[in-house]
């Protein structure tokens, strides 16, 4: 059965260790919280296969639920449906921007066919000055989920949470 509100609230207060303005619920990686007997079961889906934060997130969820009174906690990893940045709410996107990380622009591209030499027409606005005169510096940033951009208007580099 659906977990009681206090358990949902507890999980909703667990922040992503890499992006501490978003909770794991904001990010959409918590797919379900339910109670099976005296065990609270949480389904999470990874953002990226090798995301090193996943283990930390699982531990944080477990601790938060114990603090909220859960007797036993089990964190399940689920793969379907596959995580997409489309699950990040508009409100959470704004918090990301205010934190200095450009949120995913629009919805995730529909990935089919081959990719080589195709350039996405993603326009990424600078999270600081709002200019759209920005350029991609690297598809890979400090974590797997981010790319590095440079703003030619305010001359600042910034990170962009890739739309996937």
């Amino acid at each position, binding site marked *: 059965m659906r977990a009681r509100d206090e358990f949902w609230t507890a999980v909703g207060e667990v922040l992503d260790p890499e992006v501490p303005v978003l909770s794991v619920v904001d990010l959409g990686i918590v797919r379900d919280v339910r109670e099976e007997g005296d065990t609270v079961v949480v389904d999470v889906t*990874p953002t*990226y*296969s*090798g*995301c*090193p934060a996943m283990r930390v997130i699982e531990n944080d969820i477990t601790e938060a639920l114990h603090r909220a009174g859960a007797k036993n906690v089990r964190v399940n990893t*689920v*793969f*379907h449906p*596959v*995580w997409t940045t489309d699950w990040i709410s508009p409100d959470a996107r704004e918090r990301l921007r205010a934190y200095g990380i450009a949120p995913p622009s629009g919805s995730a591209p529909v*990935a*089919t066919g*081959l*990719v*080589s*030499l*195709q350039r996405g027409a993603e326009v990424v606005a600078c999270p600081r000055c709002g200019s759209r005169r920005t350029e991609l*510096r*690297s*598809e*890979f*940033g*400090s*974590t*797997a989920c981010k790319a*590095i951009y440079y703003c030619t208007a305010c001359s600042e580099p910034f990170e962009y949470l*890739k739309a*996937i």
Partner: protein
Amino acid sequence: MSLTAFLLRLGDDRLILGHRLSEWCGHGPILEEDIALANMSLDLIGQANLLLELAGKAEGQARTADTLAYFREAVDFRNALIMELPRGDFAFTMARQFLVSVFEVLHLERLQTSKHGTLAGIAAKAYKETRYHARHSADWMLKLGDGIAESHQRVQAALDELWRFTGELFESDDLERGFVTQGIAVDREALRAPWRAEVAHVLTAATLTVPDDGFMQRGGREGRHTEHLGHLLAEMQIVARSFPGAEW
């Protein structure tokens, strides 16, 4: 048991290539590239972790992703030989990444509809990641191939050296064909033509020459590896073997 054998191929390809990429950490030609190589490595090792865990579960003998990664000998690894070749120079690393990533984009795109639900889910996640690897490495084919004389010569030499290791990617055997029939695995042979077309498209744009098909090296799927794998494993496995069961 046979499902385990099949999953080991998928997992080992990623583990070994991911390890080779990780060797660049701190040695990249520029900071952004150092980070990119480490990120791609992390994606591949993450995928390997999921696949090896699944392989261990399918076997049902309590082997985990860690035991499979750290406590097998070279003859027990089932990766294609191209994954284990030393990283070489940056052109060699990127040429290999390009050839393998284009193959994997085609492969994973189809594996997403595998009738094995967990495998399909892992493939769907890996597919998104691998598209980035393909795009990034294709970019480098353009930059290096259409760059200066030395970069052109180095990436062409890398492609010529790597070409004879590409045939193994498309090889199948009875085990794998059985899983293709069941809708679990992807028919590798069917990927050959689209792979070739895409590789030729990029290399031509990069002013590079597509090497001629000739003798193809093989043996990795049966555990017959180059001498390089043993050296790689010695480094990758030493901590786990020196301190079995250690956690940190």
